[in-house]
């Protein structure tokens, strides 16, 4: 079963064998879930999101031409679904971080500002902090940051995927990094 190429299953599905889709799901649901997790940062939502991605792929399978590999095609759907997801979720408030920056310029020189606040954190707690910091980014910042740092896309490719200018991608990326920098100051001393 493992050696059978994807396209055999794709063919079976398009000729009416829904069960054959199960094999494709088994092959890729972990990777797709991980993609979804990077954007949603929550197991339940990542689960739902990855289900949504496979459902979309199933419904669009007849339009899959096979010019790229199945996974490449599936990943593209995944990417777009995740980008849509950040857009529609957008818990991001209108003017975020309005009170988050210290009123003086201590954040420019955090080494002096935060001195010994570093404390040991359980890995899980730290992950939680990081996740919620990323969650607080604006939708655009989050999309750009995740695509860059988790999906490893080049700035040029991110610009294509999001239909932005490279300059905007850069700016969003750097703003995201700056925000995370401020948010996570206590953990990077």
């Amino acid at each position: 079963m493992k050696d059978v190429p994807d396209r055999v299953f794709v063919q079976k599905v398009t000729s009416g064998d829904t069960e054959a889709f199960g094999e494709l799901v088994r092959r890729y649901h972990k990777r797709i879930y991980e993609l979804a997790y990077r954007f949603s940062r929550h197991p339940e939502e990542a689960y739902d999101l990855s289900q949504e991605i496979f459902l979309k792929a199933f419904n669009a399978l007849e339009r899959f031409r096979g010019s790229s590999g199945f996974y490449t095609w599936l990943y593209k759907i995944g990417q777009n679904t995740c980008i849509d997801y950040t857009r529609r979720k957008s818990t991001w408030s209108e003017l975020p971080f309005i009170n988050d920056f210290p009123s003086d310029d201590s954040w420019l020189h955090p080494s002096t500002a935060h001195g010994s606040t570093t404390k040991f954190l359980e890995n899980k707690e730290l992950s939680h902090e990081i996740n919620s910091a990323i969650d607080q980014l604006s939708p655009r910042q989050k999309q750009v940051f995740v695509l860059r740092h988790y999906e490893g896309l080049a700035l040029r490719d991110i610009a294509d995927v999001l239909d932005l200018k490279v300059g905007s991608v850069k700016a969003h990326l750097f703003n995201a990094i700056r925000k995370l920098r401020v948010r996570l100051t206590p953990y990077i001393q």
Partner: protein
Amino acid sequence: MKCGWVENLIPEYFEGILDQYQLDLVTQHLENCGDCKLELDAIDRLLDLVDNVEVEYPSAMKWNGFWGDLRRKIALVQVDQRSSFLNLGWYYSNIWKFAGIGCMLLLAVLLCLQLFGNVSFLMYPYRNTEDFRAVNQFFGEIPIVQILEQINFEEQEIGFVWESDLVSNLESVDLHNSFPDTVAESWYLTDLTELDFLVYPSGNLDNVVLTSMK
């Protein structure tokens, strides 16, 4: 070269996309400035930390039921498609009725909002003042128009990012032409010290940032 400048360029430095001139300036500065070196290390640790967050998976039971779950959803969609196909005739015979009712409802809602709501479709009375306050705070209470005049008057490159919501509001009060939706904008300045944004790091407008320099 000022520390603020270098710190602003550090993310670009990390991505390896500074031009040679900027790269030289930053490298030179980093050799002599302990604070900026610390900042560089901090960003390094930050990205390391963030990149290494592990993926959290759902419970084994849920995970094992992934395909079963999906199978049910697929079945639902298939049933749905069949029934909507069968009901097509009924749907078409009533479509104008639905459209009519829809239009009436929409009109009613619009009317109510115009009459009783805070929200108007023609202007942004509430957001305007809020945004202006934020902008002014960011620039240390200098009126925004004055800032723009100052920027336009000089000639050196400087980049800003404004989030789109804010942008549309700024446009709505005539701060014109330089604000397309969510982009890094360029204006021109000869003497950057005249407009030292880093003096105002309150960050109220988190997306106004210097991004590059000639």
